[in-house]
């Protein structure tokens, strides 16, 4: 009896529509974020994460409406990331019904923003999203660096040091994505996950690379993640959140069923 490890489906939203294809057998219009959120909620998702990938900042207001609608119908924690750059961005999302915001690029360009945000809204709602890529050559000691702009721009910042610094600045949780594994379906970068999770005293969400349910188990048992995030294995109806929890439970992991 204790705290459950969390399973978090992630939805990429472009101009108010869920993209990367989400398919549920019973839903005809699978791009509607509210419908999809409801479905994951029914399946037993522990939280939901929405990443706004809208290119134009003019369309960001659309995301606010999405969050408002979801928050009026789905009563589990909601995290919103993508384009969170100012205190006003955070306030707008929290007022719309988000419980946490994920700050990524803005933290790299202005680390003080994380401190300001945590002081203003409390660490419990400030997630720092870290996109990390392995930079050591084979045979060398493990080393990962932070990349921004969806993994395109290197920064030269060491990922483990960065995570420690962000927690020191007030991050209440780390959303860790391996850019090497993202989209590969070969599993999390477990060494990266464990290195970050061991280095910080706040919960770490593992992300990037999930291709089957066993990967979720490994993220917790070997990566020591407190939560696991996945998109495509749930989106295409390959697996439900309930099946994922069953597998984790069989592996001896405490989950909410």
């Amino acid at each position, binding site marked *: 009896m204790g*705290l459950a490890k969390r399973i978090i489906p992630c939805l990429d939203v472009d101009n108010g529509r869920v993209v990367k294809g989400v398919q549920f057998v019973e839903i005809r219009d699978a791009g509607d974020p509210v419908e999809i959120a409801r479905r994951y909620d029914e399946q037993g998702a522990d939280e939901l994460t929405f990443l706004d990938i809208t290119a134009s900042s003019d369309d960001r207001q659309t995301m606010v409406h999405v969050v408002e609608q979801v928050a009026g119908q789905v009563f589990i924690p909601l995290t919103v990331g993508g384009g969170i750059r100012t205190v006003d961005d955070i306030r707008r999302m*929290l007022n719309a019904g988000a*419980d946490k915001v994920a700050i990524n690029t803005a933290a790299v360009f202005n680390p003080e923003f994380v401190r300001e945000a945590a002081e203003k*809204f409390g660490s*419990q709602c400030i997630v720092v999203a870290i996109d990390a890529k392995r930079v050591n050559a084979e045979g060398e000691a493990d080393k990962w660096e932070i990349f921004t702009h969806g993994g395109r721009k290197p920064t030269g910042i060491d990922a483990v040091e960065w995570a420690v610094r962000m927690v020191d600045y007030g991050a209440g*949780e780390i959303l860790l994505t391996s850019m090497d594994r993202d989209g590969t379906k070969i599993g999390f970068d477990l060494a990266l996950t464990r290195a970050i999770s061991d280095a910080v005293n706040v919960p770490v969400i593992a992300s990037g690379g999930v291709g089957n349910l066993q990967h979720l188990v490994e993220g917790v048992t070997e990566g020591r993640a*407190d939560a696991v995030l996945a998109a495509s294995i749930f989106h295409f109806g390959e697996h439900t959140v309930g099946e994922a929890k069953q597998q984790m439970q069989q592996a001896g992991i405490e989950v909410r069923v």
Partner: protein
Amino acid sequence: MSTVAVIDYGMGNLHSVAKALEHVANGERVVVTHEAEKIRAADRVVLPGVGAMRDCMHEIRRLGIDTLVKEVVADGKPLLGVCVGMQALMTFSDENNGVECLKILPGHVAYFGDDLHDPNTGERLKIPHMGWNQVHQTFDHPLWYNIEQDARFYFVHSYYVEPVDIGMIAGSAQYGLAFTAAISRANVFATQFHPEKSQHDGLQLYKNFLNWDGRV
């Protein structure tokens, strides 16, 4: 028509709280407010809260909500504290190098500690305590109606309440140690977890609150 006031002191997750109450309301009106007349006119009152205790107490005092909440308690109206709203009801919090709270319930608010471990597995436990944990109901209460024993609720906090009178502990949970998840005294009930984020069981608790006359 009965009214429930959700106290707005600028620090809350009050939109989520209000949305959850509206979702389960059966004709009850939900008002988000810091105005004295509206709070006094309400049949039930919710004191939510997230963020740092010092800022919360500062705003509570600045807006005169301290006296209003004490009035509500003295009048016997049902009062529900949520998260920092629960902690604010106590005497004193260790957060922010020590903060005087509302002193409605005797007890203090303590930090989990940076070196927390599961006593059974030895696993290191992260702070904040974030996620779904089981709440053991220590006694029957109208707010536990239709909620299974040891049901899971969503928590996110680094501090927890230690009441002087352990008889007030209505629910407990385990995170390295046993801590108070819910507290009850007469017309006051408060939860460390977030019912508004705890899906069916959380909504049931809000429904129970709307049906509660404040008597145990």
